């Protein structure tokens, strides 16, 4: 039996890490941590939450080929609203991902 997670997802170039369960989407883990990234439909249809893997493996889930092609998958891209981790991941966040660390205003105590 393969390990069932949870897995560490580390963001480059920020170095921050969130914990992601085997059965939850990478985006869900990010939002649960209080950090923010840009996302859209959360159904694999719009492609807004696309990210790129530097290392590790994901299960892609159901994604529109119009926004995530086979070639893009081969090159490491994934839709964070659908992708589940199969290992610890290192993920490159670009400017378009609009990453924001958890704000102190989120829970100021």
């Amino acid at each position: 039996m393969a390990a069932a997670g949870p897995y560490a997802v580390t963001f480059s170039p920020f170095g921050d890490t969130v914990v992601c369960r085997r059965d939850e989407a990478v985006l869900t883990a990010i939002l649960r941590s209080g950090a923010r990234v840009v996302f859209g439909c959360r159904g694999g249809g719009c492609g807004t939450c696309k990210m790129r893997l530097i290392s590790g493996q994901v299960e892609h889930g159901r994604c529109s080929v119009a926004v995530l092609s086979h070639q893009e998958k081969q090159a490491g891209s994934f839709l964070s609203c659908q992708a589940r981790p199969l290992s610890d991941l290192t993920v490159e966040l670009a400017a378009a991902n609009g990453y924001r660390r958890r704000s102190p205003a989120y829970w100021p105590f």
Partner: protein
Amino acid sequence: MPYRISRLGTVEIRSLDLDRDLDYYVNVLGLQLTAREGRTAYLKGWDERHAYSLMLTEADRAGMVRLAFRTVDPEDMDYYENRLRKFSVKYDVIPEDYRRGRALRFTAPSGHVVELYNEMDYTGNVLPTVNPAPWPEGLKGIAPPRLDHTLVTAPEPPKAIQFFQEVLEFRVSEMLVNPEGVPIAAWLWQRPAPHDIAIVPGRAGGFHHAAFAVDSAEALFRAADILTMHKARIDYGPGRHGITRGTTIYFFDPSGNRLETFGGYTAYQMDPDCRAIKWTTDQIGPAVFYYSQELNETFLSVYT
């Protein structure tokens, strides 16, 4: 000018997983499943009297396949065929489709496949036609009575708006005008309601949303409760649009297509003499989302 389009008759939307999405459309959105033929399911709201208004077709991507308007009279088909010829719009005559008669099919400058038809099997709504109750008991989910309108994206909105105005004789109820005075978005009507179709800037053929009517504030908030109970992705709302005055919830189906429950009960009734209302782009926030007074990150960028 008489009105010749009775309503937005049907939309065909792509599903990444038809079994999964049908469960959502039937049990969460609460549409009536009227048939399933291979990779396409046919659905409608409980108060719709024709065979279907939504086709859900399994595909490898999300988005819209086509939209269709129903004409008021059979003769309006000839009228529009003449107009398509007059404006040199290439069209195909589709002899028949599932439970539907002849249609004229063409591509609008927005990149959307648009059809006009008149005949579709008249099935009645779910109520009896003699001594009916005002509404049926035992419906599942949000259970909107009917499809209301659609919003699509166009790379050159003025061209698309002009096409719907000139060729199909829709009228503009409201428009969003940039500082140069050019309309970059428009809400278009024939049925006496604020819009049957609207156009905003974006990719050719893009599908922004299809809206289903809800008829009261109570129904709107109940819809929000149901979406949340099922952990659906709500994009915005419950809220209100400045444009149309309608109340709204934007949300996404499991394949990422945006849907809306549109509360036309707060909107106005159109009169043949109604003239277009203008919104300026510096007021796009309250124009679209009246209470938050600013656009969210998804309205102009997220669609399928």
